[in-house]
């Protein structure tokens, strides 16, 4: 089969960073091509170049043998390229239907026929198998639902090339299945798909061929994925062998540390209760919209509670103030790094020290040396790829931003309860195991850790106990000894009758 999409010696630099240098590879028609690499390896940059949003310093992109010289997103669209970026790109104030058509509104003379628009979108969505109301505002959807809308956008407009940048990072297995089915369909239509992911399972399941990037250079190109192994890819990506990413080991669990008693809130009607012991890593699993993130925000005091109490070591934590929660020893690493995590316009250093600096700032006066030390320590420990700690966080790759946010909380002192919502969203395999190691270390020191994850292998791999949530309720409480993939999934699915468990 002939090559349909080709990258020819592409180079792209940013101030202080050579994001891509001399990258060349090609993809056959009708192939799903995987793109892998560590955080900051240049995957998203490559995709941005393909989307027409930015242009390469050197090199060219060929589609169907034709060199493309497009200079805007519209040009790329005309050439048949659609890109789903790593960060969600939706307009919260507009409806699902309007977002799907944004930039390509059909209709005569610029006048929009709203009813027709909603009808068409409704039909398309149900045909694809995505269950969202076309007239709902994006702002009212959960992240997962928004991700599905993004995907629908790519599928609805007939494209010759579709690039997906970590589409499953906020999807749970059920939604991922919908996506995979869509990809199968597109492949059979001859569409070229460029697929970026850090999840090896997906890569092996979907892709026909694979390219690995490392430090902006081509590390390996595999025209046939069946000829490579997992370990080989990992080694190409991170430059070393990683035998066992989970690395879980037994720990002594202490007395009860965190107790959550019948809390409920605006989006979580049924009161929830659970507790976590010293040294325990508790996992929360569920489908999109199961209410896990909502639960963490209520516990942390980020949203206003309707009722219920949270106690740490027997002391009640004030209800609706994150600063007070932090002072009581509880921290939350939020799910949505773009809106709740990073502080744009500020450096890595400042983003890390924002909370912990109060411990070493006498009379509110900063200790710049300590802040620098702290930043350097976690940049090294979490392998953040950046030219300097002074770099504006917005210029980091998605995964590296996530690492900085993690660093913010891992550097906090006196933490007794650590809640992490999707800890490794968008983080590469190499750094993942480092992060897990840190979590085990903290747990061993007696910290109570709550991990929310949509990645089943991860929850099963690193936690001591799993609470499965379904439609805002805790549907199952499973100890590590009883971990079983089918049982957990069954509890998470709303349509299957589930065993009701007493909250512990």
């Amino acid at each position: 089969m002939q090559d349909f999409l080709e990258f020819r010696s592409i180079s792209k630099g940013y101030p202080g960073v050579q994001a891509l240098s001399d990258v060349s590879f090609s993809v056959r028609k009708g192939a799903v091509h995987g793109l892998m690499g560590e955080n900051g390896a240049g995957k998203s940059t490559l995709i941005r170049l393909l989307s027409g949003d930015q242009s390469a310093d050197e090199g060219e992109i060929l589609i169907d043998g034709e060199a493309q010289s497009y200079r805007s997103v519209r040009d790329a669209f005309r050439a048949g390229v659609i890109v789903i970026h790593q960060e969600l790109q939706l307009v919260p104030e507009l409806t699902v239907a309007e977002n799907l058509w944004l930039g390509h509104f059909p209709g005569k003379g610029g006048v929009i026929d709203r009813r027709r628009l909603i009808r068409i979108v409704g039909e398309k969505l149900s045909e694809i198998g995505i269950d969202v109301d076309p007239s709902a505002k994006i702002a009212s959807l959960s992240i997962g639902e928004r991700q599905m809308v993004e995907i629908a956008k790519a599928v609805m407009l007939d494209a010759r090339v579709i690039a997906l940048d970590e589409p499953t990072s906020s999807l749970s297995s059920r939604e991922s299945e919908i996506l995979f089915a869509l990809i199968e369909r597109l492949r059979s239509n001859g569409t070229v798909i460029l697929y970026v992911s850090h999840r090896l399972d997906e890569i092996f399941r979907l892709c026909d061929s694979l390219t690995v990037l490392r430090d902006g250079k081509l590390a390996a190109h595999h025209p046939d994925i069946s000829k490579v192994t997992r370990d080989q890819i990992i080694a190409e990506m991170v430059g070393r062998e990683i035998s066992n990413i989970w690395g879980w080991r037994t720990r002594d669990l202490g007395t009860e540390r965190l107790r959550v008693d019948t809390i409920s809130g605006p989006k979580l009607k049924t009161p929830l209760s659970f507790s976590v012991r010293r040294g325990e890593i508790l996992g929360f699993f569920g489908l999109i919209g199961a209410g896990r993130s909502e639960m963490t925000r209520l516990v942390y005091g980020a949203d206003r509670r309707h009722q219920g109490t949270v106690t740490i070591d027997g002391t009640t934590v004030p209800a609706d103030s994150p600063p007070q929660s932090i002072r009581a020893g509880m921290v939350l690493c939020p799910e949505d790094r773009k809106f709740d995590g990073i502080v744009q316009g500020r450096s890595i250093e400042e983003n890390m020290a924002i909370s912990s600096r109060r411990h070493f700032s006498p009379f509110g006066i900063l200790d710049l040396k300590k802040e620098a030390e702290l930043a350097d320590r976690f940049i090294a420990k979490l392998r953040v790829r950046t030219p300097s700690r002074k770099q504006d966080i917005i210029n980091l790759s998605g995964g590296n931003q996530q690492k900085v946010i993690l660093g913010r909380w891992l550097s906090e002192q006196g933490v007794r309860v650590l809640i992490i919502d999707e800890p490794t969203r968008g983080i590469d395999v190499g750094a993942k195991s480092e992060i897990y190691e840190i979590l085990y270390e903290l747990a061993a020191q007696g910290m109570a850790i709550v991990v929310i994850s949509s990645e089943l292998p991860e929850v099963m791999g690193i936690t001591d106990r799993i609470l499965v949530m379904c439609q805002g309720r805790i549907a199952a409480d499973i100890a590590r000894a009883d971990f079983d993939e089918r049982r957990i999934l069954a509890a998470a699915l709303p349509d299957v009758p589930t065993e009701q468990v007493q909250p512990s």
Partner: protein
Amino acid sequence: MTSLKKLLLGEQGLVVIFAVAFAIVALTVPNFLTERNMLGLLQSVVTIGIVACTMMFCLASRDFDLSVGSTVAFSGMAAVMASNASGSILIGLVAALLCGGFVGLVNGVVIAHFRINALITTLATMQIVRGFALIASDGRAVGINDPSFYQLALSKFLGIPTPIWVMGAFFVVFGFVLNRTVFGKNTLAIGGNPEASRLAGVNVSNMRIWIFALQGLVCAVAGVLLASRITSGQPNAATGLELSVISACVLGGVSLAGGRAAMTGVIVGVLIMGIAENVMNLLNIQAFYQYVVRGLILLLAVLLDNLRSAAAGRRS
């Protein structure tokens, strides 16, 4: 009880609150609900109302325009001077539209292409344009030679003066444009998330240029009507208009963070501003106290609207 609450705090809450306030004022303030006063009231908000139409687009796309007052004055001057010189009102009108459109275009190009902050750009053009108006007229008002120019403002249709009709037409047209056209949706999209709009293929910088150019043209219309009403082109006219117009829009629920706007809201905002002024004068409130009252009304109006949306947010 709950249905009343629902009505007050619902989608159209601001309109309902406004209707209630209007009824109270109508019942308690003498001379308020007379035909004459109503027409006077409407005429007094013509400039604000017309300019608010495009300011709504400007704010909805997360921009800002401080130059509207100067542009109104400048294009009014241009209309008077051109029609005096040529003897034709039509030429005056065209001159005004050219001037207004040009100012808007310059704003748009500087903001969209050179990526200069809209606040600073329009603050600069506000001064430059005011300077031009003053230079052109040597700082003095220019009288209108042809009395039929006055007719623009004085003529009536069905008993209602032309400027009010014009304002009404603008409300209808721009309401339609906002909700029912690609232009309107793109405006809201740019304001809601400029990055996403750009990546979706909306030509953001063209849109911004268009919005500013439109704003300039609309200011020109307001300027011509104003000149006709005050029977002269005045270089000092409409100072401070920008803040009144922006207040009216924000009162009407247009978000300064972009992405949110509604024509009904803006109309209500414009009317609130006009009624406050009108009632204070009817009640003979002292000038200094008018400042305080004006400020309090502004606060109260947004506060009520905020309570409303807070309540709406909590409801689920």
